[in-house]
């Protein structure tokens, strides 16, 4: 249960950062927080307390002891995606700073209406 609460707290924190913070880097951190929260959520869904890897060839391993392997695979995929997204985002921030000379999101609003 605590994992769920933790992960949702992380997501909420990330959302807070994305909405309230003015600094581009902080917004990116917020995004990363959301992503981490989601990853934590995925992991915790498949987690079995005291469980172990589902290796069928190992003797004496009961099904209830097996940790669901799919969420872990999913998490790996999600992490990869997040990482690439973050890389792209940082590149954008660099370019934004070049063009606008500021990291304040309030000042970056040449496109509107």
């Amino acid at each position, binding site marked *: 249960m605590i994992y769920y609460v933790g992960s949702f707290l992380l997501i909420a924190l990330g959302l807070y950062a994305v*909405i309230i913070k003015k600094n581009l880097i902080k917004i990116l951190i917020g995004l990363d927080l959301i992503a981490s929260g989601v990853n934590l959520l995925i992991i915790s869904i498949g987690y079995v307390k005291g469980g172990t890897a589902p290796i069928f060839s190992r003797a004496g391993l009961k099904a209830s002891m097996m940790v669901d392997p799919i969420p872990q695979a999913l998490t790996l995929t999600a992490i990869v995606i997040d990482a690439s997204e973050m890389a792209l985002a940082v590149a954008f921030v660099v370019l934004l700073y070049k063009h606008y000379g500021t990291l304040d*999101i309030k000042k970056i*609003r*040449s496109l509107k209406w």
Partner: protein
Amino acid sequence: MNILLEIMLATPFIGGLLAFIGGKVHRWVRFAVAVTFSFLTLIEAFVYYNVTIKGVVWGSLFGSKLILQTNPISWLFLFIVTAMSFLIVIFSIGDMEEDRIKLDSYYMQLLFVEGAMIGIVLAGDLITFFMFWEIMSWTSYFLIIYGGKKSVAAGYKYIIMSIIGAYSMFIAIAMLYVKAHSLVYADVATTLAHSSATFVVWTVVLLGIGFFVKAAIMPLHTWLPDAHSEAPSPVSPLLSGVLIKMGAYGLFIVLYGFLSVQLAGNIMPSVFSTPILLYIIQWLAALSIVLATFLAIMQEDAKRLLAYSSISQIGYVVLGIATGTSLGVAGGLFHALNHAIFKGLLFLAVGAVIYRTGTRNLSDLGGLVKKMPYTFTALLLGIIALAGVPPLNGFVSKWMIYEALLQKKEVFLLIMAFIGSTGAFLYVYRLIHSIFLGQLPKKYENVKDVPILMQVPIWVLAVSTIIFGIFPGLAMNVIVKGMKLFGFKPIAYTLFGFPQGTAMGALKVINISAVLAIAFVAAWVLFLILSKSRKVSQYDNYAAGQVVTPELKYNYSFGFYMSFGRVIKSILKLGIERIYNYWVDAAKIFGDYYMRRVYTGNLETYNSYIVIVVTIAAAAILLGGKLW
């Protein structure tokens, strides 16, 4: 025979495309193709003279059959469309010159409009009808904006109002479809016959809004004066003579093809033995007649004057159609034909004047009768017809409408109809006086009459005003036969008029015209017997001792009815257009205000939208899926 209907519908479209392609080769190819195909359509139309064909299925959509049909009423409008289009194509060859205006797709659009209107009158179901209705709207839009800078704004207003009207129709059509899953006219009629009064009224009102926008009946007319006056000269007669008649045709189909007077009378109360819905339509038409007449009297622009006159005259058509009696409906339909003829003639004649002088401002013109006598004569016939003076055609149809109203004792409407006709004397006289009579401005001294290609259509129409005036039976052959199909008692008529008993009095136009001709000849002979008159210059004039010279603007033509304008000042102030503009502006400001507050360009705002949506979703989940 039946397949010809589809061929006929396709002819103008094919012709339009060929004209467009041919135009790339040479302009004369374009002219030739346009003339050929519009003539071909006219010939094909004559195949269906007084023929009734029910239901040629040409497709099917969403379970409703798409049908083409024809009957004499359709034929009447078919005749108007094809004949006028043919004449206008001929006129265009003279008028729309390559060096004055870019012509790439002019003939294509012209033929497309013709094709769309043919589609409307041949349609046997509402989807076909609506489809061609919309095609007509946008193709005619492109024709209107050929007229230059000002016409673009006019065309914009036209297309927007057309779209609004069309969508109003659309709702009604969708309602009917949902109810019966078939939009064939016969099925629609049965659907309406088994529907509640509310449903019927809504259907008719929604359809009616669409038709009234196109027919420019009074509160929905505001596009017409601009569009008709700014459109190129050959297009104005098409709009005024033909296009707005489609509204009248639609109204006829709805009122008598779908509903019938008996049915309407059963489901709603009647006033003056007219179902109240029809009575309201009659009032709108009558108001159009009177108010548009007043406005036409005060115009200084020849085409604008004719445009307002169109609103007034289409009022007669609708008024006649909405009477619900055989005589009145026949009168309305006949007036549709007559109006097409004489208004087409007037617009073409004014177009000819514009072609030679380059202006349509009435007070800049004058005295052209000496320079353009043929155009003058044709226009004279046109205005006599328009004013409803015997023996020309406008008189007969108006007479029928008056008699029908009198028979039904709808006296107030009758008074308004009369007033509109008397008012027409004022503005038609203004038109001919300011253009052709009086002092000839010096700059127009070298004006010639227009080339033969422009004369021909004008004169064909001018002769038609006489023919249909003296032989109203020619048109009645078609109209009465067609109206029988719609459940009307046939009215008695002869080739020359109406015998006693049809109306409250009799009419025999040939006697009127014969006696008038004899009296004219007698007076003329007497005139000739007396000593010959000497022609003196226009400037040798009674001017209280002053010497009048050509440099002096001596003629009285600006503000011709200024004193009358004082009488109707309060009416002129009523601006329906201002009200519309007010609402449009308000909507624009409102829309802009909200848009600016939603798409602020601020990423934080955007992100918070996401959070808001998620929050609402979360609230919904917590409340068990119910937000209220």
